[in-house]
């Protein structure tokens, strides 16, 4: 059986032609407030965080006891015992325990990939509704044993005789006992994400002023969104935290300008990247509910935005041919072309602020005729983005960036904003999301809201 047979879902089996044309809709979203790592969530596990995000969504959308087609989620920093993180979270939630869970991991694009996975299952007619999400906690990062101890333990495990076991143990050296924290550097280059971005920042000549402006806007816009109650139906408090703890509503160009550069200090160019225009390590979880129109209508849930399409790109950053975080610059033009759109057709653009410079570099690349011609194979530049259409409720510089949770944070935020604008302006409103990820990857998505329900 390809579709669910829950008594509450009355949909008939559908033919392939019909199923391929079904639309997937974002109908609700929820997240925990994001907290800087080592703070209020320091003792919370990723499973606890993800369960909390699910529980808030279940309460908001009335999903208690409901059997969903699937819940897809994931974490970048995950302990081996959390291999079934999502299924375990489902079992700890109010969902019908017969709801399957899927663990997905694509670095910082995990939340984008889970959204794509659930939306595609719906569009293919495999499921009627599902939850996509992501979670991360740098506070709950796995600590592993060193390579020396690991080898000895594996050999010990294989040894049959006492002599073999003693032989294995005799190879142990005191230094082998030191624990190893997870590396944050790119495995193939040894450079941190910030150092990689610093090279891209220098290559595009991005100024400190421009980066600090992005950071200032992000904090001010996110603060305004919180003040206006925008997040009232998108966030559920967790562990006594009611707002994103990284948010600095009173930040200013003066304050940001006083910070010392932390990345790119050994390059020839003036270093410009500071703790203020880079995202901090953050803990948090987010989730969105995606469903067919019929499924949502049966439950009285709003069709916030249709998940139109996804595209993922990857760039060869290893030898420096392209910047580590530039893949979205390649993915978005492909996605737009496939859907017969241009950047000018997009009403709202969300570019994940891994660093302020990441946003600026992608924007600069799309305006650069040479880049668009040589790298993207386009006769015309992709074009400029009006800053009034960009990250209108702030982004990761202000909210923080729990790696796998960022994608679905943006999907939920954008879907709600698109719907509000579609209703207010009485026309379809389209949004583009761009999320860069480790390994030179980037995921982009198109969402569209309509005035009616």
């Amino acid at each position, binding site marked *: 059986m390809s579709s669910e047979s829950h008594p509450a879902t009355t949909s008939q089996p559908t033919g392939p032609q019909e199923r391929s044309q079904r639309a997937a809709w974002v109908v609700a979203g929820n997240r925990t407030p994001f907290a800087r790592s080592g703070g209020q969530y320091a003792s919370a596990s990723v499973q606890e965080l993800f369960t909390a995000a699910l529980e808030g969504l279940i309460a908001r959308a009335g999903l208690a006891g409901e059997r969903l087609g699937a819940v897809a989620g994931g974490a970048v920093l995950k302990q081996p015992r959390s291999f079934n993180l999502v299924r375990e979270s489902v079992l700890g939630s109010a969902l019908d325990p017969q709801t399957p869970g899927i663990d997905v991991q694509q670095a910082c694009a995990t939340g984008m990939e889970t959204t794509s996975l659930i939306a595609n299952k719906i569009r293919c007619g495999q499921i009627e509704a599902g939850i996509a999400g992501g979670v991360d906690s740098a506070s709950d990062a796995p600590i592993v044993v060193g*390579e020396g101890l690991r080898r000895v333990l594996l050999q010990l495990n294989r040894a049959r005789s006492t002599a073999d076991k003693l032989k294995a143990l005799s190879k142990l050296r005191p*230094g082998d006992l030191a624990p190893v924290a997870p590396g944050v550097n790119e495995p*193939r*280059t*040894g*450079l941190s994400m910030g*150092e990689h971005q610093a*090279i891209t920042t220098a*290559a595009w000549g991005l100024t400190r002023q421009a980066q600090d402006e992005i950071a200032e806007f992000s904090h001010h816009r996110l603060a305004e969104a919180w003040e206006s109650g925008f997040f009232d139906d998108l966030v559920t408090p967790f562990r006594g935290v009611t707002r994103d703890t990284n948010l600095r509503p009173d930040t200013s160009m003066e304050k940001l300008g006083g910070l010392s550069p932390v990345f790119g200090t*050994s*390059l*020839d160019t003036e270093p410009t990247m500071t703790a203020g225009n880079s995202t901090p390590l953050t803990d948090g979880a987010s989730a969105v509910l995606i469903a067919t129109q019929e499924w949502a209508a049966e439950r009285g849930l709003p069709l916030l935005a249709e998940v139109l399409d996804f595209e993922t790109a990857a760039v060869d950053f*290893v*030898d*420096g041919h392209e910047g580590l975080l530039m893949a979205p610059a390649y993915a978005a033009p492909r996605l737009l072309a496939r859907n017969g759109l241009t950047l000018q057709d997009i009403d709202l653009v969300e570019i994940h602020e891994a660093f302020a410079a990441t946003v600026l570099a992608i924007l600069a690349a799309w305006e650069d005729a040479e880049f668009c011609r040589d790298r993207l194979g386009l006769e015309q530049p992709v074009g400029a983005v009006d800053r009034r259409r960009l990250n209108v409720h702030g982004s990761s510089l202000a909210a923080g960036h729990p790696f796998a949770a960022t994608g679905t944070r943006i999907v939920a935020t954008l879907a709600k904003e698109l719907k509000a604008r579609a209703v207010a302006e009485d026309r379809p409103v389209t949004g583009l999301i761009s999320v860069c990820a480790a390994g030179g990857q980037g995921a982009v998505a198109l969402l569209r809201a309509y005035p009616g329900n």
Partner: protein
Amino acid sequence: MTEHHDTSPETGRQRIVLDTAPSLGGLYAKAAGSTLVRGASTGIRRALKGAPLPRPGKRSPGGPDLGLPPVELVASGLAVDAEGHEAFCRVVGARPRSSPSGRTEAFSGYLHAMAFPVAMALLTRDDFPLPTVGLVHLANTVEHAAPVFVGETLEAVVRAEDLRPHRAGAAFDVVVELRRPPADGDTAPGAPGTPWNRPVWTGRSVYLARGVDVGTAAESERPAFVPPVPTARWQLGSGTGREYAAVSGDVNPIHLSAASARALGMKGAIAHGMYTASRALAMLDAPAPLRWEVEFGAPLLLPASPAVAVERDGRGSDLHDGTVTVWDAKRKRPYAVLRLHR
């Protein structure tokens, strides 16, 4: 170690065959290891007791007519040991390549380390005119003519040649040739032109004996170093030299600890040149046949986090030209530049 001598028909050099019966091939690494330690300690004794290390500007006792011994050392039964190869690759970050039949291609840097004890045996001979400890490794060229596989046993022939003036002393080359032993049906062993007679791997290491005067070097302008855009960085801990010594057998004290290095006049422990070269080569990750050359610059004082740039025109078997530059990002001085062609 016993030796027996004859004269090479091809080179006219006296062949000194190190006494390692082929049946003891598997044990060669161990024997060579103790040779190495003995050789190294001889060198240290010579350096510490016999005479101070030559200093720049001081004419060494031998004068300009120092001669390299007209000998070649031959060692057969050098086994490409699976465990040793794996450990070496782990330390330098090389990804061993396995063929579908299950054979693992030996990493080019490991073959250098495998033959190194034979080279040390030559450098520490009583008739070798230059002190072993204190030699500066300037450059290396390797012609890796055919894939060598883990489990194979090779023969090494080592000679020193081309003693020449250098602006800081005297330079000379140590040439190591690795050959496959003759298979059944091969014609007379050693006959020129037989397939096994061609080396599968030839390494030429250029060493500098500081302050040794063998004449005046021609003035040569070294082009100014222009750092490329970094694409990577290495994190080298203070134990890097000990880790490499454990898998290469090269226990030169200048690499092992700050204290032992200072005793020999260094500022602190420095990374082995062949560690740097092997790690750079591993980043290019290209299969044999290949040719690579490395030129060393400033000593890589440990611990360090050098900047690295990898430039290549393809990946794997599609790679034809590649360069890895390793440098000190703060002082903008090169540690090593490795170039690969295939």
